[in-house]
């Protein structure tokens, strides 16, 4: 029986108030806490077992707060359940080493993938699930709501209004999920100012601001030095432009990270121009501010770019191109990863990116048996958006070609997102890009995961591009045909060596497999002279001096 | 036989080699160096078996206050220019002397490297070591006998700078802990990712990469191994005489790096150098007319 007294509808709020009261001794003017008191503040507001969001994605990091969290007394604060986008700093894993945290729900762990796998094996860390970004953000509002969020901003005013600028990224979604469920929001800021350039997060959603001794760290993740692009990458890029972009007239795209897509971007003003494709392809992007996109933008190819985050050194360039980027009334860009991922999921005609392994069915993964790499946002774009209801020509055309369309919808018109994987048949040290079974399967066993971490499932994948040519997998009538098409592009890997030449010839006749020659591309032309910019310096020239690459890329 | 490590004892080595009490630091004839300049380089005049010579050595105990990476025998900018200046001073003072009258230069080698600092790179450390080598090569080619005596460490670029431009190179034998190398085998193993045992095994038959005076001996980079400390003065003196005799005979490249190249072949260590040069010479002879 429920009595009136036993029901409390604001227990979260009560608890929060108690925690805030415990933190009161460390609060100076307004919401400010001195950096020196940050560890004590965390000890005051955290309770064992809390779900804690430590902001950090593949770009910006609340690194100061992460360091402070590592220094709390584990006797007092322990067994935290971390819910965070990305594990990328050493200190993210130090938390588990020290017993401060126990469980992890996350999305991507690139640089820490090896150590993460080790910790799981050693029983130091328990993984809830590996998510895509949107999926994780979704769960912040269902069953992974943070009790405390530790986030980062460029600046705050004395009331606690935050400016997160070009690197807004995950902050709004984390803060909203936390604060609107009575949680506590602690922010590290680079500086405290009289007036922020723009209010990205309103003050009343923020509990504490701490001026960090160093500006928060940002990884220039999307910067690719054109000097490192190889001839083989250029060949694949030529095939993509002619055999996919031009073929389907693709206007709305996302480029995965990597040198293959950088090569495509740098070929638009040269090879693309030569094919007369300007205005016909590549007008709209959901994409970080890739420096390698500068030549295409400057040549008038690109009408709009919606960014998941900022990119170090691109701030001034982006600011000076408000027709192309999303710029606030204050004149600077704001990124919002949740919205950009939504745009990427629903409003694109194609996702294209690289991967580590593709199995004989066409499933792909970046995990290996000893590295839990996670996904990030790629699967949100590298899939067919089943809720999509607007038509574009490339999307419709891909649907028309879809070999199972009749079977699945009775022939009712429906389009299909192009999901393209760029793959080297062999990477460095002759590691094969095509395998019988994904390492992810073994990893799932090793780490006790319910699902093997598959980046893109075979049923979403429409095209594979290797130096051998393009497999138009979606055209296949069944799995047997798909596997044959995969063998045709798999080169001299064990999968590729199982190829039956007659079968391949038949696929070629039906346009399911096309070689560079079939596409009218001379592979001998695939060399670096086709790149619109061959090095970082030329990118700076293209940008009219507005792009200022980070020091580690400033090779002149 | 006395076996004592001589690493870090450059100043003592001077006393062991030259006539007792004859070494006058920082003095070359009427020229004098400030004692503050390049303290890691010890230069001065002395007598060997009664004859005037000039000594250039390393002091492992000196610390150059102005250049934080220069200590423990490291050759910094000041040290290298001081060494070069010493050589030029001797050449200038002896310019009018006949070949056999010119003062010999004795390089006592115990240095772990050239200064690896930021200021050094900004101001061009490469010039400093280069300057000293050019000076030595010039002195050698204009008739001074230049002998290097490795007593401790002769490492990589620092040995190139201070030692390998000599007419003849002597080394204390390995029992003295003498180190001659570019890099210890452990580091080579790490960088080349080759197994250390495999490298050691390969080094038995091929001296081109392993660390130690024996390997340099086989490659012609060391003329003679000195096995007793007491033998150093007589060995050096004997080599000075050999060098002067060879030069007097007027044969080109009878001493110095080019001679050491031939020595390397005679000792079975560097078998590919000569065939390469000969092939190039023959091929050029076939086309020379087009160019000359």
């Amino acid at each position, binding site marked *: 029986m429920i009595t009136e007294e036993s029901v409390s509808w604001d227990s979260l709020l009560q608890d929060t108030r108690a925690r805030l009261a415990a933190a009161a001794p460390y609060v100076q003017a307004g919401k400010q806490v001195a950096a020196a008191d940050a560890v004590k503040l965390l000890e005051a507001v955290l309770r064992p077992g809390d779900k804690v969001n430590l902001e950090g994605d593949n770009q910006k990091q609340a690194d100061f707060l992460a360091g402070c969290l590592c220094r709390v007394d584990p006797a007092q604060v322990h067994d935290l359940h971390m819910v965070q986008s990305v594990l990328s700093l050493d200190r993210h894993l130090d938390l588990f080493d020290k017993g401060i945290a126990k469980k992890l729900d996350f999305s991507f762990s690139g640089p820490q993938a090896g150590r993460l796998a080790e910790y799981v094996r050693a029983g130091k860390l328990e993984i809830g699930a590996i998510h895509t970004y949107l999926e994780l953000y979704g769960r912040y509002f269902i069953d992974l709501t943070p009790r405390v969020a530790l986030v980062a901003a460029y600046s705050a005013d004395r009331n606690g209004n935050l400016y997160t600028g070009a690197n807004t990224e995950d902050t709004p979604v984390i803060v909203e999920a936390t604060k609107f469920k009575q949680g506590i929001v602690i922010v590290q800021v680079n500086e405290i100012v009289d007036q922020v350039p723009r209010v990205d997060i309103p003050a009343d959603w923020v509990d504490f601001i701490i001026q960090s001794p160093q500006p928060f760290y940002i990884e220039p993740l999307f910067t690719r030095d054109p000097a490192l692009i190889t001839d083989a990458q250029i060949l694949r890029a030529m095939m993509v432009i002619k055999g996919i972009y031009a073929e389907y007239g693709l206007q709305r795209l996302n480029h995965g990270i990597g040198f293959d897509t950088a090569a495509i971007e740098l070929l638009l003003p040269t090879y693309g121009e030569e094919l007369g494709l300007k205005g016909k392809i590549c007008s709209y992007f959901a994409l970080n501010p890739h420096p390698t996109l500068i030549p295409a933008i400057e040549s008038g190819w690109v009408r709009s770019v919606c960014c998941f985050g900022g990119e170090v050194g691109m701030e001034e360039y982006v600011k000076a191109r408000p027709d192309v980027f999303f710029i606030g009334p204050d004149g600077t860009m704001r990124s919002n990863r949740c919205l950009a991922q939504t745009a990427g999921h629903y409003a694109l005609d194609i996702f294209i990116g690289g991967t580590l392994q593709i199995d004989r069915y066409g499933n792909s993964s970046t995990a290996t048996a000893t590295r839990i790499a996670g996904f990030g946002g790629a699967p949100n774009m590298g899939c067919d958006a089943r809720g999509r209801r607007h038509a574009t020509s490339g999307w419709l055309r891909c649907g028309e070609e879809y070999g199972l369309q009749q079977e699945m919808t009775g022939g009712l018109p429906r389009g299909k997102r192009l999901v393209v994987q760029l793959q*080297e*048949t062999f990477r460095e040290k*002759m590691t094969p890009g095509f395998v019988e079974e994904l390492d992810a399967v073994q990893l799932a066993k090793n780490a006790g995961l319910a699902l093997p971490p598959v980046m893109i499932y075979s049923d979403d994948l429409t095209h594979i591009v290797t130096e051998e040519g393009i497999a138009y997998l979606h055209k296949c009538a069944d799995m047997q045909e798909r596997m044959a098409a995969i063998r045709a592009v798999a080169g001299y890997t064990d999968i590729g060596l199982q190829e039956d030449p007659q079968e391949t010839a038949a696929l070629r006749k039906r346009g399911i497999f096309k070689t560079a020659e079939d596409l009218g591309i001379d*592979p*001998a032309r695939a060399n670096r002279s086709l790149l619109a910019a061959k090095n970082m310096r030329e990118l700076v020239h293209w940008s009219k001096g507005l792009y200022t690459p980070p020091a580690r890329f400033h090779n002149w | 036989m006395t076996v004592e490590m001589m690493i870090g004892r450059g100043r003592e080595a001077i006393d062991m080699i030259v006539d007792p009490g004859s070494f006058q630091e920082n003095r070359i004839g009427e020229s004098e160096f400030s004692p503050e300049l390049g303290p890691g380089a010890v230069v001065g005049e002395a007598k060997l078996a009664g004859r005037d010579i000039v000594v250039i050595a390393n002091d492992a105990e000196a610390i150059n206050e102005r250049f934080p990476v220069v200590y423990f025998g490291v050759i910094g900018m000041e040290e290298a220019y001081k060494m070069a200046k010493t050589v030029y001073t001797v050449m200038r003072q002896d310019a009018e002397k006949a070949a056999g009258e010119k003062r010999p230069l004795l390089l006592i080698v115990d240095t772990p490297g050239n200064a690896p600092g930021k200021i050094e790179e900004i101001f061009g450390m490469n010039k400093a070591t280069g300057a000293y080598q050019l000076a030595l090569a010039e002195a050698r080619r204009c008739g001074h006998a230049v002998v290097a005596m490795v007593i401790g460490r002769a490492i990589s670029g620092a040995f190139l700078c201070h030692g390998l431009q000599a007419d003849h190179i002597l080394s204390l034998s390995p029992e003295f802990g003498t180190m001659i190398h570019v890099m210890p085998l452990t580091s080579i193993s790490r960088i080349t990712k080759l197994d250390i045992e495999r490298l050691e095994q390969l080094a038995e038959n091929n001296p081109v990469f392993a660390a130690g005076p024996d390997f340099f001996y086989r490659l012609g980079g060391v003329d003679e191994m000195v096995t007793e400390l007491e033998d150093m003065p007589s060995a050096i003196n004997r080599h000075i005489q050999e060098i002067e005799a060879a030069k007097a005979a007027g044969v080109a490249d009878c001493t110095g790096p080019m001679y050491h190249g031939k020595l390397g072949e005679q000792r079975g260590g560097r078998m590919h150098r000569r065939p390469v040069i000969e092939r190039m010479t023959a091929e050029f002879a076939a086309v020379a007319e087009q160019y000359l």
Partner: protein
Amino acid sequence: MALQELHYTFRATEPQPFPLGWSHSGVVGSGDMEVMFERCMLDGEIRFKVVTPVRGFERVWEQVLGRFVNETNLADVSVEINDNNATPVVVLMRLRQALKEARKEAEG
């Protein structure tokens, strides 16, 4: 692990001569290779010598070189490759580029 030497011999279906007496191209950078073609009487055969640090890919080399012979029908030429971890795509690309350059030089 010493360098490995691999040898392959093929016979083209419609033998074509190599356009020059000899030609060389490429640089042995990481993931790359150089190749030397030398015309010589081999009774209609083409011979390859591959020097490589990589082990365990003998069959892949055979397939890749066989494909090059199939598409070019080269005969009476000896081909030497110094490899440093070039992938099959790079090998084929370099061989094709080398032949193309040689043809261009022969014409020009």
